[in-house]
Every structure is written in C-alpha cells, then in structure tokens.
C-alpha cells in the first residue's frame, strides 16, 4: 500500500517537473509574437451564421405553433406515453416499433435509390425480405441482429436536399413540429409511399380511411415517444427562447442528415 502511494507521489512529482521543463522564457515570447498575428486573423464569423440572415416570414405563426406543440407534448403526448410505457413491457413496445419501422421500407428504399445510394437500398431490401419472413411480418428484427443489415433512414425531404433544393423558410407544423418548405413537400410525397396512411381503400395500404390512419399514426407516435421520455424536457432546459432554439436544432440536423 505504502509503495503504491510512493509510486503515485513520484509520478505526480515527475509530471509536475516535466511541466515546468517545457517552459522556455525566450521561446515563449517569440511564439506569442508569432501567434498574435494569426490570432488577429482568426475569425469565427465564416463558420457561424447570424440570425439576420434567416428568412422567416411565418415567424409569429411559428412562435405560436411552437407554444401549442409544447403544451400538447407536455400535457397530452408525454403523460399518455408515460402511462403506455408503464403498462406495456419494453419488449412489446420494441415489437411495435419493429413492425412500424419495417412498414416504412418503401419510403427508405425509394429515397435511397433516388439519392443513388444503391448499396443502402440493397441492404434495405434485404432487411425487408428477412424481417417480413423470418421476423414474423416485421415484428422482430433478425436482419440487424443476425445478418448485420442496418436500416438507412432517408426521406424525400433529404432527397430534395441531395438534389440541391434549398430548405425554404421554416414552418412549424401542428403535432409534427419543426419543418420547412422543402421538408413539407417531402413529407407529403413520403405519405404516398407510407403503408400506414391512406384516406381510401388501396390494396397495399393498411387503413382505408382517415380515422384508421390517425389511429395507426397515434399508436406509432405514442410508442416511439415511450422510448424517448424526458428527452424533450431535458433539451428544453437549454433553451433561452424555445422557438429559435428548436428551429436552429432542426435546420442544422437536417443539413447534417442530407450530407450523410
């Protein structure tokens, strides 16, 4: 024990000494001078953008909708998802999540292809075939566990971005939250490919009217939220002003997703 302490002491002493050794007074002065020049050139403005540069024609509507969504989340979605997660076992919720995620295959497949990500599109096809059969209609995910095939999330908003379409101004959607012109168009196009959403009877779509579509979407949303409880509240604490905060996070995240 004593030896151990002695060792630590020696090591600490040694590193402390080695710190001092690195100081060469003359060299320091020279380097400070040299770096004064580079420091004054140093400008962070090209890396960071300013608020004035943003086009935000729907600012007041967006602010109001952000407040509405915040209340909706806090007093409806979050408590419902909390109760849901207390009642339904995590494994069952995982199955629900797998089922919905497997159904979204057409959206991911088409958008991977449209972005010329053929390998990813191939992996998605493999996943869909494996999970729909061995995985009991997508209830389980043997593709990622046994075959190492991962999902590649792409949506039409990302595809448009990939093609060079700009985001347009920011739009906060009721319930769905932050979006922009480009992603709203993308969202509508993806809806056509979404098997869990349909207003009328179609052979490959599950619901045949709006009510059933809403019911399915609600289950999907509550189930997804049950895995993310507390995250929004935690994130919100960092906000000085909720609307620009969420807007900025959304837009930056989308740019990142498009680049990927």
């Amino acid at each position, binding site marked *: 024990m004593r030896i151990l302490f002695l060792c630590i002491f020696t090591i600490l002493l040694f590193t402390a000494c080695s710190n001092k050794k690195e100081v060469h007074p003359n060299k320091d002065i020279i380097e400070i001078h040299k770096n*004064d020049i*580079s420091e004054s050139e*140093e400008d*962070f403005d090209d890396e*960071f953008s300013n608020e004035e540069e943003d086009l935000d024609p729907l600012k007041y509507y967006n602010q109001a909708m952000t407040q509405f969504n915040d209340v909706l989340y806090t007093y409806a979605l979050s408590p419902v998802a909390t109760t849901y997660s207390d009642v339904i076992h995590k494994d069952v919720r995982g199955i629900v999540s797998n089922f919905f995620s497997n159904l979204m295959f057409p959206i991911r497949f088409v958008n991977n292809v449209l972005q010329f990500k053929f390998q990813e599109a191939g992996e998605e096809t493999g996943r869909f075939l494996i999970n729909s059969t061995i995985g009991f209609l997508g209830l389980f995910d043997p593709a990622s566990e046994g075959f190492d095939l991962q999902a590649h999330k792409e949506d039409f908003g990302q595809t448009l971005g990939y093609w060079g379409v700009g985001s347009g101004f920011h739009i906060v959607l009721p319930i769905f939250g932050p979006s922009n012109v480009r992603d709203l168009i993308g969202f509508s196009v993806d809806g056509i490919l979404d098997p869990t959403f349909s207003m009328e009877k179609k052979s490959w779509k599950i619901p045949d009217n709006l009510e059933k579509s809403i019911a399915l979407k609600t289950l999907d949303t509550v189930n997804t939220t049950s895995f993310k409880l507390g995250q929004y509240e*935690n994130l919100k604490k960092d906000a000085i002003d909720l609307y620009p*905060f969420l807007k900025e996070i959304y837009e930056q995240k989308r740019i*990142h997703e498009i680049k990927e």
Partner: protein
Amino acid sequence: MKILLKTIFILLALNLSLQAIEEGKIQEVMKTQIDSILLVMQNKELDKKTTANKVFTLLDSIFDYKTMSKISLGRNWKKLSLEQKDAFAKSFEKKLKFSYMDKLDLYTDEKVLIKELRKKKKNRIQLYTDLLGKDASFEIIYKFHKNKKNDWLIYDVKIIGVSIIQTYRKQFSAYLKNNSLEALINSL
C-alpha cells in the same frame, strides 16, 4: 482498492490535463479526458454535485469558455464594455456547465469511440468521436482552435450535426433585438 485505483487514475488524468494540449497530443489527451469523465460519471457513489465538480475540473482544461462566449454573441460582442464581456462570459460558462450536468442525468453506460482528427486550417482541428449507446450511436465533433499560447482548446461541440454555440448564437441575437444584455445575463 478499486476506489483507490479510480482516484489515482483521476488524479493522473487531472495532472495530465494541466498541461497545455499540443497538436500531436489532442487525440491522446482527449481520450484520457473523456475516459476520466466517463469514469467519474459511472461512479455511482458520488453525489451529483461532486460528480459535476470533478467533471467541470476536467472540462476547464480543454474548453475555451471565453472564445465560446465571444462567438455566441457574434456582432454584439464588440459593442460590450470589458465589464459586460466579463459578466456575460461568466454566466454563459455557468449555463454551459449546468446544461452539461443536466445531460449527465441521461447518462447510462455509453462508451466513447475516438475516430479521427481532421485539420481544417492551420489553426483549426476537429476531433470526430462517436458516443456508443445501447440502441444508437451519436456523432460528437469537438472543434479546436489554437490560442495565443499555442494551446489547442475547444471552442464548439457539434452533436449529430448540431453546433451548440451556433444554436446559442441564433437565440442570443434574436433575444438581444428586444432585450438588454442585462436581461440576457439574468435569463442564463
């Protein structure tokens, strides 16, 4: 014995952190720093405050709070007096630290993978890391700049594409359009 070893490790890490970070050592120093932060966070015997203080000490040696404050205010920074700059920098540093501490609460047994170092300019380096969780992994990029003393320090962190400082910058400039700096400092 285990606790003792942990303490030694933290002490060593702290000692190492007191040294200036040289360019060639960024990866190595960050690996040690992140590992010790994780070690502190995984130690369930410590209360939240002790954990936070230990983590803050580790962060202090690698974060350049002053530069972060400056960038986050953008054009408004130049309009401030020295006292105002100081007051703002102090409360912004506190805000960043407390928000970081809040995030510790979400911490379960994640692991950090240091991927690569990319030199963007002669005085800018980005360190790419992955935070590996149970279900998903997040990319975290630490952005370093070289300061006057030739040390490399972090001036921004990007989490899955979202720059922390950029997000504050947008909020601050929006806020300062209608409010005073004193009000901003109070809201931090």
